[in-house]
């Protein structure tokens, strides 16, 4: 079957160049002498249109959006409510960093290194996701949440006890190879990928399983396959996000990947509206920008009010606006028009 030059491929290529352009515009123009500098260029001083601080916030935003969308697949689409998603992020982060620092030979060209790192990070995360997915097949609701919480913590504690990746001190000197271009491109690819899934027979089936697993079974579909596949894809994406995080920050600490992080990702989904891709994006964006806004408050008053306001906001939204910003009540799930 000949893969014709169809809309999707056109879109992907378009995103590629668009992201490249954005990065240059915002970070300043690089020298065009070698491909590495074009692809990996990051701002040194404030050479571009925005300050390095905002630049790094944008990168973080991208990472959070990928995380949020990855969880939506599991939660909002398939109805599997997990509370250990940060664990997959951690695996991706540490696996990719370890691969890059210990496994991949120095001589490899930069962009190949990055791609390998990301694939390894996502891949190992997907493997663990597969194992966990298989073991929790029979669980749902609160029980699934608690078990995945347990797994998330076990993953974190295990990594904490591996000295080779720094243990309690954290892992440092990770090659920083992620810039705004790569994140933007990845975000757009991930969103497109997820949307495709949603519009496909797989998406329908996932939603069906979420609504009524028994009925799905009686319509001839074995939910097991879909559930495990969703776990694998979701954990791959989370691992990818984790790897991006590692190669953006340059250092890792297991503290980052605790249950609180898992809860943050859940909050992104919930605020945006469960089951909606646009919601996941907005949720991810909001929950990146707002804490930074609170940082100002914190500097002013000297008290860390972020978590309190966070927790309060989530609780209030749950009570008064349970469907989130883009969620559905009785109408169709709301989405950005261009996401259709």
């Amino acid at each position: 079957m000949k893969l014709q030059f169809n809309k999707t491929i056109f879109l992907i290529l378009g995103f590629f160049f668009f992201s490249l352009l954005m990065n240059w515009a915002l970070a300043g123009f690089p020298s065009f002498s070698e491909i590495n500098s074009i692809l990996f260029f990051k701002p040194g001083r404030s050479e571009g249109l925005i300050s390095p601080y905002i630049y790094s916030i944008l990168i973080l935003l991208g990472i959070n959006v990928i995380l949020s969308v990855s969880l939506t697949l599991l939660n909002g689409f398939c109805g599997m409510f997990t509370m250990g998603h940060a664990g997959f992020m951690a695996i991706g982060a540490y696996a990719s960093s370890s691969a890059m620092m210990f496994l991949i030979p120095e001589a490899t060209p930069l962009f190949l290194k990055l791609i390998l790192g990301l694939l390894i990070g996502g891949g190992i995360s997907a493997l663990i996701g597969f194992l966990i997915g298989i073991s929790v097949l029979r669980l749902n609701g609160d029980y699934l949440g608690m078990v995945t919480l347990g797994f998330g913590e076990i993953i974190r504690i295990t990594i904490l006890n591996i000295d080779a990746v720094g243990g309690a001190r954290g892992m440092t000197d990770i090659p920083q190879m992620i810039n705004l271009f790569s994140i933007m491109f990845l975000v757009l690819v991930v969103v497109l990928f997820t949307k495709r899934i949603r519009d496909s027979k797989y998406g329908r089936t996932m939603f069906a399983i979420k609504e009524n697993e028994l009925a799905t079974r009686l319509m001839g579909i074995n939910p097991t396959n879909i559930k495990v596949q969703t776990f694998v894809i979701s954990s791959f994406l989370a691992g990818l996000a984790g790897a991006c995080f590692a190669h953006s920050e340059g250092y890792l600490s297991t503290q980052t990947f605790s249950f609180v992080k898992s809860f943050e990702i859940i909050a992104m989904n919930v605020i945006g509206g469960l089951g909606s891709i646009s919601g996941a994006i907005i949720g991810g964006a909001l929950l990146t920008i707002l804490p930074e806004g609170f940082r100002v408050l914190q500097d002013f008053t000297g008290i860390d009010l972020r978590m309190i306001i966070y927790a309060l906001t989530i609780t209030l939204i749950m009570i008064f606006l349970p469907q989130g910003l883009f969620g559905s009540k009785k109408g169709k799930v709301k989405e950005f028009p261009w996401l259709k």
Partner: protein
Amino acid sequence: MNEFIQHTINGLSLGSIYALVALGYTMVFGVLQLINFAHGDIFMIGSFAGLYFLRFLSPSQPSVGVALLVVLVAMLCSGLLGMTIEKLGYRPMRKAPRINILITAIGISLFLEYGGQLLFGASPQFFPPIMEKTQFHFFGDITLDSNQVIIFFIACGLMAILQFLVFKTQFGRAMRAISHSLETASLIGINVNKIIRITFFIGSALAGAAGVLYGLAYPKIDPLMGLLPGLKAFVAAVLGGIGNITGAVIGAFILGLSETYVAGYISSTYRDALAFVILILVLLIKPAGILGTKKIEKV
């Protein structure tokens, strides 16, 4: 052998504290099918309430009577807090999907934790010794702290009172009716809201008592202390069969003992992981727990 007995004593002491917290989880789950994520933090608030009351009292002499008084005050405070959380956080969500309620519970939990940091300061504080500490020695190197004995007996006393309440009173009957079927219970005239409120009060009060006892046993307390013990008590409740009161106690003692054995014989870094491992094993093998029963869904 002596080591084993020592560990057993410590394990029982720890288990009794877990039991008090586990009971709260199980009671609330029984009536509302809700995992009250904030329960561990109510435990923490109880501990601090006890601490501040103690400072306020500033007793000149340590005594068991003072300890009991502190426990009671803490119970009152946490009980009221639990009731408030139920009224403001959970009651409006009675008809909401499970996920939403769980997230609300988590939100409340985090709010209590970080609010606690704000109020009490993030650094740990210390429970002053309020009981005369004597040590009994057996067979050489087995020590039994008088603290441990008192804690154990206070915990057991409270459990006995709960047992009476649940199985021998009108309230208990109503509570058990609701845990079987909320709709039916309300149809036969039970004031469901009132019973749920009281259930929360009692469950939270027990957690508050546990908080004080914990402070007496391990004097260091801080606003984030509720997380781990709360989670472990939850595992204990699940192990025994969530919703089952006797099960919660059994599960708690099993957990307390095994945790102490693991820390003693294997390594203390893995003691916290044990609870998670047990949780996963139980939920994967027999989710109903030791004493739990499977509910058959109508197809």
